[in-house]
Structures are given as structure tokens and as C-alpha cells.
């Protein structure tokens, strides 16, 4: 096997090893310096391999499905893995000063690192997995690491947020697991590709699919299961918030897309895809309206996540069901995936920048951003660039994503979704200007001085989200590698 | 019916009798200490008789040994818990949830 072929498994092995070491000894600096370059190299290797040779498939332990577990990475998985690598790299670099254990080991300084590396491993495990039960274990792994990070501050509010999240997450995992059980009972396999090949008109498969969808929707915080998200994402320490908001919901969304576009595309009836679309639209509008009303910086950003996640679900009415066979489906599907990536980059940048602002101001009321353009211009610029992506303005990645979805909505004659996308953009402008406009006000005095390097790190993420729009042709092409061709008949 | 089968029938029935007697005692006896007494009867005698009753059916000597071991374990555990529970001055109820 070539070195390139080893990249996927080492994307799991390396962060796990780092997590083990982080449990034993509080030396994050060494771990970050050791693990980050390796992860970047492995990601480049994986992306190049997928780009050159197409989708990768690995039978773990040499046992082929259905007996064993197979890992798989096409363009979509590789893109999400690469996004994770970029976002996590910046996050761990930003987190080093705060959780550096410079004066001996502290509680948070110790706990943050195993959790961060385990979360990284869990995300990669979800994106690579080609087995329904293995995905269950990986998602539980991710959920429990998330839960611990949400509670890390140790205040009553953050622990309550963690408990609320736990209630949704536990319910979601059981629903997903029950769905998996029913699918296995009906077809005797857990492998995504083998399940895709099986005929699935029976009651167990349909009930299983519904349960899997409900479970994953609860974990992705799709409206009306969103109530846990804002307190959880806003209450965590800023680097953790960045992971939670930028990456964690993408994992369950990724599985949902795999499930509906690879495993059971034929079961996505018109009523189902429209229902999911309505929930996504509700999330966009409701999340945006609540974001406008927030008075705290991190809460506002968290509600923006509720809204931005809503866009992802428009992939179902635009590219699923009847639309799957239509010419516009590729654009809509790719647009939604680009939205996931662009949002990950922009939201990661925004939460990290917010963390710096909170650190400088000593509080997280919206007034913390007053005068930012003068006191912390790099951070103000980070806010501005990520806002461009979140609003969907050219030339950002968010623009390309929303533009692709918009044109598909028009092409398919589903004007309602186009209106929702446009309204969502206007509402995003409304809540983001509440952050951006005051940066030019006269400022209150900042309490702490934040170095230029620490400010520049989130900026690179925001800049990457813009770059995604400028280079949109290559990402578009890359996402098509191994894209499920749902339009092969059997559509309702 | 073979002798071994008859043996099993007699002893398992006797064991069952003590379990039922213990359960009836649990329901009928008025105070906690006499209920505890009923419990230990079922634990010790009921389980013991059933172990003896199943003995002729074993496949290997080691299984018989295991059966005796289970009985001994249950005997010790029940003696300890009975002792501790009897001494424990517990509040009537810890807390309620609607």
C-alpha cells in the first residue's frame, strides 16, 4: 500500500495518540507542535490522493463488508476532513495561551487538550466511516466530548446548557440506533454501500430511515430541536465554541446527507423533502430573528449558527426526492456542501475572534466590540470578512454556496426556497451589522492587550472562507468526486 | 422416570416451595424484621434446594462445583445484606418526583 493510502487511518490514529498523551501529561505545546504538521501533511496527502485517483475505500483489519467495517472517502468526505484540519489547526493554536498550563497543570488546562484531540479524531472518524453502527459509536464519541467541552467552564449556566444538550443528544442517539437496528434486522448488513444496493420497500427500512433522520436532526440542532444549541455553544470557552459551532453539527449533517443521498435516495418522497425544507427554512428565519434580539456577543453568533444550519437542509427539497434526477440537483447539492464548509470556516473565525474580544473587554455584552476597528483592527477585519461569508456576499464562499442554491431554486421553480435564502441573507446582514457597525464607535478602554499573531490566526480562517469563493471552480469539481448519482431510477 | 429425574423433581419443588413461602412472607408479615427473616429463608434454603436439585443434571464435575460456589456466594451475600439492612436506620423515602 502506498503512503497516500495510509492517510485516512492516520488521520484518526494521530489525534487519538495525541489525546492519550494529553491525558498523561499536561504539555500541550509539544503535542500541538507534533500533531498539527502531521495532520496538515496527512490531509494534503488525502486530498491529493482523492483528486488524482478518485474515492478511497479501506477495509479495516482486512475484513470486507458486511463482516468488517470499511472506511470510505470521496470528494465530500475529503473536503469535510480538510475543513476540519484547517479549522482545528487554527483553534488549537489560538487555545495554546489560554490552556497552556504554564504555571503548572490546571483543571481546564488539562481537560481541554484530550477533549480537543478526541473531538478531532471523532470528527474524522465520522467523515471516514462507511458503516452505520460505526457511525453510531463515532457520533457518541463526538457527542460526549462535546458535552464535556460545553461544561468545561464549570458555571451553573454552562452545566445546565450541557444537561440540556445531553437530553437532546441522548434522545437523538437512541433514535438513530433504533433506526440502524431496524435496517440491520431487515437487510443483515450495516455497510452503507451494501445497504444502498439492497431493495428497501419494507416497513422496517422506512421506519428505520425516519428514526435515523429524527435522531440526526436532533443532533444537528435542526428546528425545532435547536433549543439546546445557543446556550451550549455560547457557554463554552471560545476555542471550544468554535469547534462546537463550526464543526460538530456538520458531522451529523454529513451522515444525514450520506444516508439520504447514498443509502436510501429512493425513499425520499416529495412530502418528506418538503417537510425537511420547511424545517430548514424555519431555522433560517427563526434563528436569524432571535440573533437580532440578542444582547450578548457569543449568543448572537450561536443563534446565527441555528440560522446557517437551516440552509444546509434546503439540500433536501432542492437536490433530493424528485429533484435528484434533474439537472439543477448537482448545483444545489454542491451549494449546500459549500455552505457547510464556508460556514465552518467563517463561524470558526468569528467565535475565535469573539473569544479575543471577550478577553480584551472582560465581558461578552455587545458593547465589547465598540471601537474595535481602532483598538483591534485585525479582529475587526476578521469579523468583517466572516460576516461577508455568512451574509452570502460576493466574492465569498458563502456567496457561491447560496448562489448555487438560489439558481437551483429558480431552475426547479421552487421560488419559495429562493425567497427564504434571500430573506435569510438580509436578516443575516441585520444581525451582523449589530456587531460590525459599533466597531467604528469610540471605544471603552480594553482591559487586556491581545497580540497581533493571536488576532491574525482567526483572520486566516475568515480569509480562507473568502478564498473558497474566489477559487470556487476547484472546490466544485473536487466535491463531485464520488458524488452519489442519485438519478438512476427508482425515484418516486 | 429415572432416579436422577425424580431427585431433581423433588428437590426443585422443595426449593420452589421456599421461594414462594418467602415471597408470601414478604407480602404478609407485618413488620420489617419478620419480612427480613422470610427473605433469608428463601435465599438460603430455596436456592440451596434448587442447587441440589439441578445437581444430577450437570455435564461435568466442574459445573457441580460452580453450582455449589454460587450457593455459597449467595449465602454470604444475603447474610451480609440482611445484617446491614436490619441495622440501617433509613429515612422513609429519599425524595420524590412528580
Amino acid at each position: 500500500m502506498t503512503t497516500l493510502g495510509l492517510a485516512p487511518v492516520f488521520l484518526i490514529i494521530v489525534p487519538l495518540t495525541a489525546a492519550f498523551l494529553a491525558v498523561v501529561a499536561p504539555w500541550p505545546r509539544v503535542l500541538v507542535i507534533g500533531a498539527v504538521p502531521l495532520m496538515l501533511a496527512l490531509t494534503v496527502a488525502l486530498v491529493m490522493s482523492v483528486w488524482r485517483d478518485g474515492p478511497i475505500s479501506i477495509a479495516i483489519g482486512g475484513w470486507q463488508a458486511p463482516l468488517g467495517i470499511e472506511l470510505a472517502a470521496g470528494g465530500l468526505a475529503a473536503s469535510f476532513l480538510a475543513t476540519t484540519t484547517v479549522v482545528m489547526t487554527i483553534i488549537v493554536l489560538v487555545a495554546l495561551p489560554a490552556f497552556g498550563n504554564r504555571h503548572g497543570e490546571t483543571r481546564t488546562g488539562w481537560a481541554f487538550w484530550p477533549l480537543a484531540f478526541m473531538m478531532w479524531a471523532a470528527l474524522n472518524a465520522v467523515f471516514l466511516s462507511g458503516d452505520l453502527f460505526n457511525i453510531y459509536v463515532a457520533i457518541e464519541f463526538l457527542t460526549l466530548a462535546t458535552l464535556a467541552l460545553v461544561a468545561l467552564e464549570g458555571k451553573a449556566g454552562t452545566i445546565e446548557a450541557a444537561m440540556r444538550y445531553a437530553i437532546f443528544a441522548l434522545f437523538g442517539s437512541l433514535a438513530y440506533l433504533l433506526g440502524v437496528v431496524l435496517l440491520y434486522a431487515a437487510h443483515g448488513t450495516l455497510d452503507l454501500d451494501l445497504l444502498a444496493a439492497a431493495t428497501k420497500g419494507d416497513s422496517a427500512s422506512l421506519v428505520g430511515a425516519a428514526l435515523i433522520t429524527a435522531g440526526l436532526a436532533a443532533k444537528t440542532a435542526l428546528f425545532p430541536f435547536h433549543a439546546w444549541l445557543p446556550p451550549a455553544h455560547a457557554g463554552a470557552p471560545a476555542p471550544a465554541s468554535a469547534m462546537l459551532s463550526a464543526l460538530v453539527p456538520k458531522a451529523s449533517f454529513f451522515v444525514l446527507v450520506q444516508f439520504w443521498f447514498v443509502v436510501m435516495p429512493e425513499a425520499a418522497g416529495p412530502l418528506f423533502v418538503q417537510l425537511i425544507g420547511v424545517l430548514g427554512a424555519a431555522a433560517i428565519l427563526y434563528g436569524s430573528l432571535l440573533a437580532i434580539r440578542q444582547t450578548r456577543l457569543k449568543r448572537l453568533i450561536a443563534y446565527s449558527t441555528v440560522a446557517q444550519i437551516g440552509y444546509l437542509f434546503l439540500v433536501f427539497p432542492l437536490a433530493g426526492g424528485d429533484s435528484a434526477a434533474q439537472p439543477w440537483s448537482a448545483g444545489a447539492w454542491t451549494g449546500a456542501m459549500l455552505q457547510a464548509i464556508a460556514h465552518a470556516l467563517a463561524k470558526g473565525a468569528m467565535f475565535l475572534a469573539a473569544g479575543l474580544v471577550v478577553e480584551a473587554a472582560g465581558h461578552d455584552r455587545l458593547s465589547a466590540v465598540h471601537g474595535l476597528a481602532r483598538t483591534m483592527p485585525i479582529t475587526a477585519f476578521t469579523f468583517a470578512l466572516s460576516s461577508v461569508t455568512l451574509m452570502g456576499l460576493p466574492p465569498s464562499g458563502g456567496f457561491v454556496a447560496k448562489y448555487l442554491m438560489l439558481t437551483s431554486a429558480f431552475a426547479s421553480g421552487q421560488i419559495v426556497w429562493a425567497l427564504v435564502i434571500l430573506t435569510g441573507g438580509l436578516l443575516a446582514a441585520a444581525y451582523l451589522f449589530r456587531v460590525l457597525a459599533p466597531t467604528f464607535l469610540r471605544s471603552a478602554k480594553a482591559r487586556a492587550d491581545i497580540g497581533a499573531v493571536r488576532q491574525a490566526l482567526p483572520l486566516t480562517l475568515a480569509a480562507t472562507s473568502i478564498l473558497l469563493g474566489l477559487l470556487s471552480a476547484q472546490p466544485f469539481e473536487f466535491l463531485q468526486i464520488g458524488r452519489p448519482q442519485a438519478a438512476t431510477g427508482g425515484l418516486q | 422416570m429415572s432416579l436422577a429425574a425424580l431427585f431433581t423433581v423433588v428437590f426443585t419443588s422443595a426449593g420452589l416451595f421456599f421461594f414462594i413461602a418467602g415471597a408470601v412472607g414478604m407480602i404478609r408479615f407485618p413488620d420489617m424484621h419478620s419480612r427480613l427473616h422470610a427473605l433469608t429463608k428463601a435465599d438460603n434454603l430455596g436456592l440451596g434446594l434448587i442447587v441440589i436439585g439441578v445437581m444430577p443434571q450437570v455435564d461435568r464435575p466442574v459445573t457441580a462445583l460452580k453450582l455449589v460456589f454460587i450457593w455459597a456466594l449467595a449465602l454470604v451475600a444475603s447474610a451480609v445484606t440482611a445484617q446491614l439492612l436490619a441495622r440501617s436506620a433509613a429515612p422513609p423515602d429519599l425524595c420524590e418526583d412528580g
Partner: protein
Amino acid sequence: MIGPAFDLLLALIVIAVALAATLGRDNFGAVVFFIVYGSLLAVAWTRLGAVDVALAEAAIGAGLTGLLLVGALARLSRLEVFSPKPPGAGARALCALTAASVAAVVAYALTGLDPDGGGLTETVAADLDRSGVQNPVTAVLLNFRGYDTLLESIVLLVVLVGVWSLAQDRHWGGAPGLAQHARPDGVLATFARALPPIGLLIGVYVVWVGTSEPGGAFQGATILAAVWLLAAMAGLTDAPSVTRRSVRVIVIAGPALFLAIGTVGALAGTFLALPPDHAKRLIQVIEAGLTISIAATLALLVLGFPQRAPP
């Protein structure tokens, strides 16, 4: 005829116990019912012929989860927590309707299943002699789907980090839970001195037979954890400080060893490959490592976060 009658009776009792555990007003009664529930389920698993699961259910459901919940409820009641009003009759009826419809839909899904579906039984049997072990469940857990098991052992670790991180900052470096004590010559202490050797024997036996007969690392580790907790409850031993390097090495050792063996395979070409000639030995090594780490982790999880200042 007798078989199904027994099963039906057992199923009804299990359902009644589950109802009591969820419907009863008394919290402590609910926990007691839940412990009972675990032992009844162990019987149900035995009836189904899934003895490996029955062992796990007896050790986890009836054993460790019971310890965890009894301890937690006692701590909460000492804090005299606030009890909210129960939801109104209308809300309860709506919840009951939701729950009943989910159960009905699941039951409907079951009616559509092929009554002869054999799953992967034959596939596993066909490759069993290349797995290195004779117990098919162990073969699936440690070889065919060893990757799941690797991740699962790390899930326990992530939870341990999460639980410890709930300590107050001033307690960081202290030992988990509270110091326990008992009358040194009392029944409890005597029992706790006598039982560990027996428990150790049973735990190791359950792990050991796991390669050929029902049993394995998880069941054995749970038993070991429970026995150690008994000694801790009797004040005979105490949990070590969470900052002790040795404790941390013990909790990661098993998963790290498993990962290391998998990585060697990856460097040789296949992640987590166990060559058939060495599979048995490797599985035994992995199981031994996992047993130690899982037993330590589970025991520490039940004790909870540090509540004592470092000495």
C-alpha cells in the same frame, strides 16, 4: 409450549418493572426497580441464547449502573434538591400518546421483517477460524469489528476526562469522590476484605474464557470495577489523586495498546489487521490491556469528580 409461556410471563414482568421504574412517584423506588430490571433482563438474554450479552447486562445493568444511580440519588437528596410540579394531565396524555405511537410504529416495522432473516451468523462462522478465537462474539468484538471496540474504549476515556473536569478548581489534584469509612471489624469491612479475591478470580475467569466461551474484557472489567468499589466503600482502599501519573497511564494503557497494535498493522499495510497465526495471542494481549484500563475507568467513573482538596 412451556418455553413460550415462560417467555411471555418474563416479558410481562419486565414490562411491569419498566413501568414501575418510570411511572412511580418515588425516586428511590424507581432506582430499585431499575436494578431489578437489570437482573430480569439478564434472564431474558439467557433465554434468547445470548449469554455474552446476559453477562454484560448482569454486570452493567444490575451491578454498576445500580451503584452509580443509588449513590447519585443519595448525594442529591442530601442536597435537598428542589422538586418541580409534575406536568399536567393534558401534557401527560400527549406524552403517552407520543410514546405509544412510537412503540406502535416500531412494532409495525417488526411485522414486516422476514421471519427467517439470519443476519451475519453464517458469515461470521465462515471466517471464525481465521479470527484466532472460538467465541464468535469475541471474534466480532476484537477482530472483525475491532475498530468499534477501539473507539468504544476511548469513549470511556473521554467520559472520564469529562467527569473529572467537573471538579471545582480548588479540588483539582484531589481524589475523586468522598473518603469512605466503615467500622473496621464490622460486617461490611469483613465482607469487603473477603470478597475481592473471589471477585478477582471471577473477573479474570470471565475475561479468560471469553476467547472460547461467553465472556470477555468488558464483562470481566465491570466485575473487577465493582469489586474494587466494594473495597473502596468499606474504606479499605481509597481512590488515588486525579493528577497521579500512574492512574492516568493505567486508564489509557489498554486503548493505547490496542491502537498501537492497530498502527503496526497499518504500517504493514492494513489498519488493525491481526494475522491469523498470531491473532489469538494478540487478542489475549489486547483483552488483558483493555480489562485493566476499563476496570479502572469504570470504577473511577462511579466515584465521580474530585471533591477533596489535594493533600
